[in-house]
C-alpha cells in the first residue's frame, strides 16, 4: 500500500524548497488536493508557444517518482478519444517520449516514457541502473526538468492533434 501521508509530507517539503518563497498561484501552479499538483508548461516552436498542463500525483512519492500525465486544462483529465491535442509530440529525444495510447495489461494508457515518472515503472519499462529514480536525490523538480527538456524546440513537434 502506498504511504499517502508520506507522499503529502514530501510534497509539502519539496514544494517549499522549490518555490523558495514564491507563491504557487502566481506561478500558475495549483494544488487541488494534498497529493496533486498542476503545472502549466510552455513548448516553444519557431513562431509560437503551446501551453500544456501536467498533472503530478504524489501517492507513491518520494519512494517512486510522481505519477505524471498531460491533461486537458478544462477537465484536468486525459481522454484519449478527445484530448490528444493536449499532448506534445516529442521526437528525437533519447531520454523521453510521449505515447498517447500505450498498451499495458490489455488497456491503453497515456505514457510519458521517462524514468522520472511513476508510469514508466508501472509498465515495467526497461531501464539502465544509472537512470533509475533515486528517492534520496531526486525530487519532482527532476521530473519537470526532464519534461521541459523534451519541450525544447529541437525535440518538440507540436500537439499530437491540431487544436483548432
Amino acid at each position: 500500500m502506498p504511504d499517502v501521508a508520506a507522499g503529502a509530507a514530501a510534497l509539502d517539503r519539496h514544494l517549499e524548497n522549490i518555490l523558495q518563497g514564491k507563491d504557487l498561484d502566481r506561478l500558475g501552479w495549483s494544488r487541488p488536493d494534498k497529493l496533486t499538483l498542476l503545472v502549466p508548461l510552455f513548448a516553444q516552436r519557431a513562431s509560437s508557444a503551446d501551453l500544456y498542463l501536467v498533472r503530478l500525483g504524489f501517492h507513491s512519492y518520494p519512494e517512486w517518482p510522481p505519477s505524471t500525465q498531460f491533461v486537458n486544462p478544462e477537465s484536468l483529465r486525459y481522454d484519449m478519444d478527445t484530448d490528444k491535442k493536449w499532448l506534445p509530440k516529442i521526437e528525437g529525444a533519447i531520454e523521453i517520449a510521449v505515447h498517447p495510447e500505450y498498451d499495458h495489461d490489455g488497456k491503453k494508457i497515456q505514457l510519458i516514457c521517462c524514468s522520472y515518472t511513476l508510469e514508466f515503472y508501472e509498465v515495467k519499462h526497461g531501464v539502465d541502473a544509472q537512470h533509475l529514480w533515486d528517492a534520496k536525490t531526486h525530487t519532482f523538480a527532476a521530473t519537470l526538468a526532464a519534461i521541459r527538456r523534451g519541450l525544447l524546440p529541437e525535440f518538440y513537434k507540436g500537439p499530437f492533434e491540431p487544436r483548432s
Partner: protein
Amino acid sequence: MEHQLLSLFHSRRDVSRMDVRLERAVSKKRKGETVTAQAQEDQGNPKVEVLYLNTNAEVSFHSSWGTTLRDIWAKAYVELKEAKRDNDRFECQTGQSLMNSLDKTLEQLRAEHTCQNRKYQIRSETGGA
C-alpha cells in the same frame, strides 16, 4: 476551456508584473551590489550560478577567468552538498550541452560567446524513449 487558458496566461503575466515591481523595489540595493560584483569581475572573479535540476537548488560563487568548466562543475557539487552521479550532465541554463567544453576556461568561453551569462545547470540523464 479558454477561460482557464486565459487564467494561466494571466497568472504568468502577473508573475512578470510582480517581477518588475520586485526589480524596481530592490534596484537601489542592487546598484550597490552591482558595483561590488563588477569590481570583483574586473579583478578577475567572475560570478557563476549553477542550478541543480534534480532538486531546483541553486548556488552561486565567484571563480576566476582561468578556471575550467570542469572545476566549476566540481565545486558546484561541494556547494550544493550533493554527490556527482555517473549520468549527470553540465549545461548552460538555455539547455545547451557543455559536455564538450569542460576543459575550456571561462575566458575561452567568453571569447567564443558560449553561455555568456555564466548561468549553468546540472541535469541527470533519464532513461526513456
